[in-house]
């Protein structure tokens, strides 16, 4: 009891450690594996990302032949970004990906 009392009393005057999340945000560090984004200019439609994806989250868009990622299946491992021969896929720092409609959870 006595050893923790000073800390407890000090905490009353200290700023709380909690971050009021939706109102304040902590900037994620460099290299966070967030939403994968495809640079369509660079993409050569090789389909390698489709093959390496461990969870079959990526399919090639039938018209444009560019990859589309289902964010509800994606596990954000970053294998596609690593495998891409022209570095067209990047893992962005975007992490707030919740949507009401499953059909919108797609990154193209």
């Amino acid at each position, binding site marked *: 009891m006595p*050893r923790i009392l000073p800390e407890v009393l000090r905490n009353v005057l200290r700023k709380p450690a909690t971050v009021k999340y939706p109102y304040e945000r902590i900037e994620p560090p460099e*290299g966070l594996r967030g939403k994968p984004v495809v640079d369509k200019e660079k993409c050569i439609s090789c389909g390698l990302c489709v093959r390496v994806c*461990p*969870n079959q989250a990526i399919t090639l868009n039938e018209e444009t032949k560019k990859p589309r990622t289902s964010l509800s299946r994606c*596990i*954000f491992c970053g294998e596609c970004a690593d495998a891409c021969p022209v570095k067209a896929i990047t*893992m962005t720092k975007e992490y707030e990906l919740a949507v009401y409609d499953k059909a919108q959870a797609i990154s193209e």
Partner: protein
Amino acid sequence: MTFVVPIGPQHPALLEPEHFRFEVRGEEIIDVKIRLGYMHRGIERGLMDRTYYQGLYLAERICGICSHAHNLCFSQTVERLAGVEIPDRARYIRTIVAELERIHSHLLWAGVAAHEIGFITLFMLFWRDREHVQDLLEMISGNRCYYSMCAIGGTRRDMRPEHLPKIDRGLKVLEKATKHYVSVATSDRTILARCENIGVLTKQDARNFCAVGPHARASGVDVDMRRDDPYAAYAEIPFGVVTQSEGDVFARVVVRLREVLEAIGIIRHALDKMPTGPIRTRVRAKIPPNEATSRVEAPRGELLHFGISNGTEKPERWRVRPPTYANIPSLVPMFVGGTIAEIPIVLASIDPCMCCTDRVTIVDVTTGKSRILTMEELRRMAR
């Protein structure tokens, strides 16, 4: 008069769904029955249906807390199957992440344990300081939970030079905090009253029931896979195996907190001695027939992966034995003779991870269909 107190599958003392039936007389427990299996996800079968490269990510998702341990153990097993040596730098990076994860897991556990004995302040403070480790892991690996650091044949990311001062600063904060917590936990009379001589597991019982990890070490069993079966870079790093002889809940608290300090030392040493060079060698997707076993000292104890390859890119059989599964038989001697008030802390003291334990199931992984109980069945179960 004896009556049965059901604990679980949903209960505030359990963070994960398991079912315990305690037969009690007054406050005293006279018997306990354990039923597992509320979280079966078919992972062993699932691993057999996936290629090694896909399985790596499924194995990681066996557990949310010791994800790196499973990740590491899986890739080690595959490397053994293929007979590949990984680069030195990769071994050191794996070690550093494994130890950071151990700190994260032990602080998380300490918070849960404080909550179980009603010490909410300590619970909040432990979890506040755990954030520092999580921030470090996020910075190194790019994710707070699923680090995905291991690739088959090395690691996927390198440590950047600009990370080192940040890790150093983070470790200093953690070291100071942990030392403070050790002094609080070992002197606080209310904590001692709740933890000393509670849930005692003798050395004899710990060995007989094949207990593993900090749980066994707190009973005086000197076992640590990092030393007994060295993997990654542990053979080259000096560290002490923390043991306590008392075997009660308090000994488990002390063992875990001291292991955090030990882990900080390991990380510092590894950062200091880290060789330069490549971080990954290529491993072919098809692995010739072979069988291999790999063991890792996960934060909760010995984790075992056993794989059999058959020349294709998928394993013939994959077996996972997570640490909590090994510790469950030793719960019974710890409970019997205790009181209801001791259930939460004794259960928490083995750091149970039911997610790990229930790996096998019948739920179809591809459709995810689950069974719906009829009202009649529900009523029968409620009775």
